[in-house]
Structures are given as structure tokens and as C-alpha cells.
């Protein structure tokens, strides 16, 4: 809480404030410029590049990006891929995090060791075999291929997050549930998983952002299927053929970034918790 005393300007306080304000402006400027350019006419961008308020709001740029350039399709693909990945990741990481965090069994240490090792595998090492496996499965030009590859790529952090949380829950929970006649499945789905709500929220948020922003896998999976491109892949294709369409580019980029930025503002808390938790663990 800010007390009145803190508001009294001191020399250091003023310098700090102005420096941070400058920094905040630099940090957000590219996005402000982007939104501004997305509403300008082509000529206006070149003649009055630094003026951030457009003479006239040209919404037609958005129509051009959404309809003609196909960003409605790219958006649809991105939403499907992201939703599928989030569901699949929460499902498999909650299950394995639960048993890894709460039970001692033969092979547990090996699995944890392998998971920890996957954290440092560079993406360049895995991409060729992933494409090979997915083509063998016949899923190369499909959204399912993208979803499976994303859900199976380096989810160790989410598993460890679940494992840490489940380990902290009291032992009596299972014992009383078992006395009530609940089996292993029932205990997990009706007692444990509901209790892990905060972790599920964090894992969903982090996975959502990662899946929405992912690029390499959808890029190489849709070489032969332009209609399955996701937003960032579509963006690269768009500027490849319309390099001089600045306002179209800006509108397309705004369309692609807006959902994830809005989403972030709503779920900021979970995101920050998840990120900070990774260091503390």
C-alpha cells in the first residue's frame, strides 16, 4: 500500500520515476506504433511515420487481413491447436505429476532424471525426428500432429509443478477417502485433482501462452498445407508476398497478438506465480 509519506517527491524518487517512465515507454512503444500503423493509410505511414494518431481510422486494413489474407483461418487453427494442447498437457502432466509426487515406486527416480534432462535439450536436436515420426504416423499435414508434438515436447516443468503440489497435500486425504471406499481413480479424480486447481490454472496459462506463440512445429508441419497455418506461420507467409503492405502487416500482427495480450491481463497472477515458482523450486 502506498502511504502518503511515500508520495512526497524526493530527488531520488523523481529520478527513479522518470527513468522508469522512459523505460516503460520504450518497452511498450513498438506495440503502440503497431496499433497506430494498423489504422493508417499506406501513404500516411510513410509521410507521417511518427504521428501516432491516424488522420482517419481505417478499419479496412483489418478486413483485408482478416478476410483476404486469411487470418480468420489462421486464427481458427491457432485456437484449435492451443485448446487441444492445453487439454492434453493438463491431462497427462496432472496424472504423472500426481504419482511422481505422492508415491514411491520402482523406476520413479529414473523417470524424474529423464524429465530433468529434457529441460536442456535444444529444439534443433529433436525437430528432424519429430517430423519423421509424425510423417510415419500420417499426421504431418494435420492439426492433430501439431497438438501431439506440442504436448509431448518438454513438459517437464508442468509435471514437476504438479508433483511438488501433490507432495505437499496431507496424507490423511487419501486415508479417509480410502476408508470411504474410494479406489485409486476415484481418489485422484474426485479428491486430488479438484484440490490442485491453482496448479491446473498455472499450467493451463503457461501452456496456453507457449502453444499460442509456438512457431517451429506448425511451420514445418504445414509446408504442404497452407490452410492449416497458425497465426505466426501465416504472418511470415503474408509478409513474404506482401512486403510493402505496412498497414496490412500491422493489422495482421495486431489481430495475432491481441488475444494473447488480453488473456495475459486477465490471468497475470497465475502466470507470475508459475514463472516465479520455477526459480524457487
Amino acid at each position, binding site marked *: 500500500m*502506498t502511504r502518503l509519506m*511515500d508520495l512526497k517527491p524526493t530527488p531520488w524518487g523523481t529520478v*527513479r*520515476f522518470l527513468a*522508469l517512465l522512459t*523505460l*516503460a515507454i*520504450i*518497452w*511498450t512503444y513498438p506495440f503502440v*506504433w503497431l496499433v497506430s500503423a494498423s489504422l493508417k493509410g499506406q501513404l500516411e*505511414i510513410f509521410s507521417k*511515420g511518427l504521428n501516432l494518431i491516424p488522420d482517419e481510422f481505417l478499419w479496412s486494413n483489418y478486413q483485408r487481413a482478416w478476410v483476404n489474407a486469411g487470418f480468420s483461418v489462421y486464427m481458427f487453427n491457432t485456437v484449435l491447436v492451443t485448446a487441444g494442447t492445453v487439454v492434453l498437457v493438463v*491431462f*497427462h*502432466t496432472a*496424472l*504423472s505429476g*500426481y*504419482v511422481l509426487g505422492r508415491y514411491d*515406486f*520402482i523406476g520413479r527416480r529414473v523417470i524424474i532424471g*529423464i524429465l530433468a534432462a529434457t529441460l*536442456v*535439450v*535444444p*529444439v*534443433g*536436436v*529433436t*525437430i*528432424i*525426428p*519429430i517430423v519423421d*515420426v509424425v510423417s510415419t504416423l500420417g499426421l504431418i499435414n494435420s492439426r492433430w500432429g501439431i497438438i*501431439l508434438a506440442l*504436448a*509431448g*515436447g*518438454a*513438459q517437464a516443468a508442468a509435471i514437476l509443478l504438479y508433483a511438488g503440489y501433490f507432495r505437499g497435500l496431507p496424507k490423511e486425504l487419501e486415508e479417509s477417502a480410502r476408508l470411504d471406499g474410494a479406489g*485409486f481413480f476415484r481418489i485422484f479424480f474426485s479428491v486430488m485433482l479438484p484440490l490442485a486447481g491453482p496448479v491446473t490454472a498455472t499450467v493451463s496459462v503457461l501452456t496456453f501462452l507457449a502453444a499460442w*506463440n509456438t*512457431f*517451429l512445429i506448425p511451420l514445418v508441419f504445414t509446408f504442404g498445407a497452407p490452410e492449416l497455418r497458425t497465426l*505466426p*506461420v501465416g*504472418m*511470415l507467409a503474408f509478409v513474404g508476398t506482401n512486403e510493402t503492405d*505496412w498497414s496490412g*502487416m*500491422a493489422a495482421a*500482427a495486431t489481430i*495475432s497478438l491481441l488475444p494473447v495480450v488480453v488473456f495475459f491481463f486477465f490471468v497475470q497472477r497465475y502466470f*507470475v506465480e508459475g*514463472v*516465479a515458482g*520455477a*526459480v*524457487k523450486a
Partner: protein
Amino acid sequence: MTGYLITGRPVPTTHQTCTDQRFSRVPTLQLPKRLQGRGTQIIGRYGHPCMLTTLEQSAPGWRSRLWADRWIYLFLVPTVVLIGTFTVYPVLASLWFSLLDWNGFGSAGAFVGLANYQELWGDRLFWNAFSNTLVFLAFAVPLRVGLALFLAVILNATFPLVRVFRTAIFLPVVTTAAIVGVVMRYVLDPTSGPINLVLLNSGILDQPVNFLGRSSTALYAAIGIWVWKWLGVTLIYWLAALQTIPRDVYEAAEVDGANPLYRFFYITLPMLTPFTIIITLITVIEATNVFDLMLTLTGGGPFYGTEVIDIFVYRQAFTANIPRLGYASAAAIFFGVCFAAIAAVQAVALIKFRARRRSS
């Protein structure tokens, strides 16, 4: 597990030092040979806290243990299948692929032994990519880690708009790297991009600079954009780390009249050492994953000036006229091994540091 038992006789627990004089002379007992390595289960204990008598159940054999734990293994199946197929298998497969001459996913590869590695050794473009990656690491990692720590120390206080500042710096983090890369091409455009316009209008430059079009500046421009984009995450890490330093440490220092710089170098920094190691490790890992930004920002150009390892691999495997999947795998494995060595050194440092802190 606490002390071992021979039923009916008290056994000293091994994990704590007993301060009770009566028990100090009792030697630690070993688990009897017949029970060793069988996962003996303790089902109850009683007695003095330093001298627990435990009731144990003789351990079941591993077969019956596996069967008793069948639900546990069932729960692991989805993860094992997914991570096995898309992370663990690919690492092993890459090792094999790197020994092949293989020109496309449809065709079969021919075994060529270490020929790919031999060719890499003499490939100027590979070493160019290797050194670009190292330059990127050497500049981007300290810049991001240091700048974020500096900001975290300033922002770890209460004053007006502090949350707004944190959010502003965090904003680029949530955006799509590949889209940021495309957008930045326009922002840095030499003739109409806003950065050049600002620099020209304010008189800092008298000629526009084609930041991304010159091989002397492109890599550093990319480093700048990368630091700008990801600084917010590191800031959050540091803020979380700073929360772990108890307030009274600073209060004591203030009473002693220590100035802020002294406090930072002699209190804050030493207390943060384990975090410094792990934050640097995370940042190093992230700095090798710059494919999205690089491909969309420069595509590795101009004249391979920003071609990092991932772009080299991608070019060999996916965009060359004749794909060279084996050669690309060899490049990825070679770099991956060098990189794992760097990461391992840092991980060992972290473990050693933790052990030292625990023992002191």
C-alpha cells in the same frame, strides 16, 4: 525412513543427533542382511524420538510390488508415450540420423559413419553459425540477467505506479516471438521505420542505419530485440529471489550505516548466489532457442551474419534444394553436446553451492 529395527529393540535414528545423554552411546545398527535392498516397509513406531522402535513388515518382492503399483504405472502411460515419442526418442534418433546420408523424409538414408561430422569440421558456414550462437550467448545473457537484476532491485519497493512499470516491461514476454520478429523488420526499416525516424529527427544520426541489413550490426540488433522481449521474465525471477532475503538483514545493515552500493555487493549479491546460478542457466538455455525470432527477423542473413545453429539446422533440413537430414542432425548433435557441457558445469556449481551452504 528413520531408524531400522529389529522388532522389540530400540534403534537410534540415523538422521538426527540425539542430545539425550542416555542414548548417545548406542551404536547405529545396520539393517540385517536378509532385509537389505528389499524396500522394507515400516508400519508403525513408538518410543523416545531419538530411539524409535519401529514395527516393520517384511518387504514384498519386486514382482508383487510392480503389481501392487499397477495404477501408478497406468497414470504414467500418457506422459511416457508423449514425452517418449516427441522428446526422448528424437534425441536418440538424432544420434543415429547423424550417421546417415539422408536426402528426404520419404527416402531411406545410407550409413556413412562419422563422415557428416568430418564434413562439419571443415564447414566454414557451420563454424560461422557456431560462433554466432556463442556471440549471442556472450552478449545477450549477461545483458539480460544484469539489466533485469538492476531493475528488480529498483522495482522491489513500494512507490506509485510500480506495478504499471513491471507490467509494461513484462508485456513483450507474452507476445509471439515470430510475430515480433516480423514487426521489428518494419520498426527498424531504414527509410520509414520509426526507430530511424526518431534517431534522425532528434539529430542523433544524420543518415539512416539499416540495422538488420548490415552484417556488422544485424546480430547486435537481434540481441537488443531479444533482451527487450524477454527481460520481463528475468525481472520476475529476480523479484521472486529478492523476496527470499529477510528484511531484518537490511535493517541491520542500515543501522550500521552501509550505503546502498555496499548493501548490494556485500549483502544482496552473496545472498542471491544460488538464484544467480539458476537464473543464468535458464537464460543460457533460452538464448540457444532463438529460432523463432531469428528466422522471422533476418532469416539468418545478411550473408549468414545472424545464422545461429538452429537456423543452420533448419536450412540444411527443410529449405535446401536437396535436404540433408543426416548432416543437419550431426550439426544439432555436435552443438547439443557442447551446450550440454556448459549446462552441466552450471548445474554442478549449483549442487555444490547448495551442499556447501547446508553443511556450513
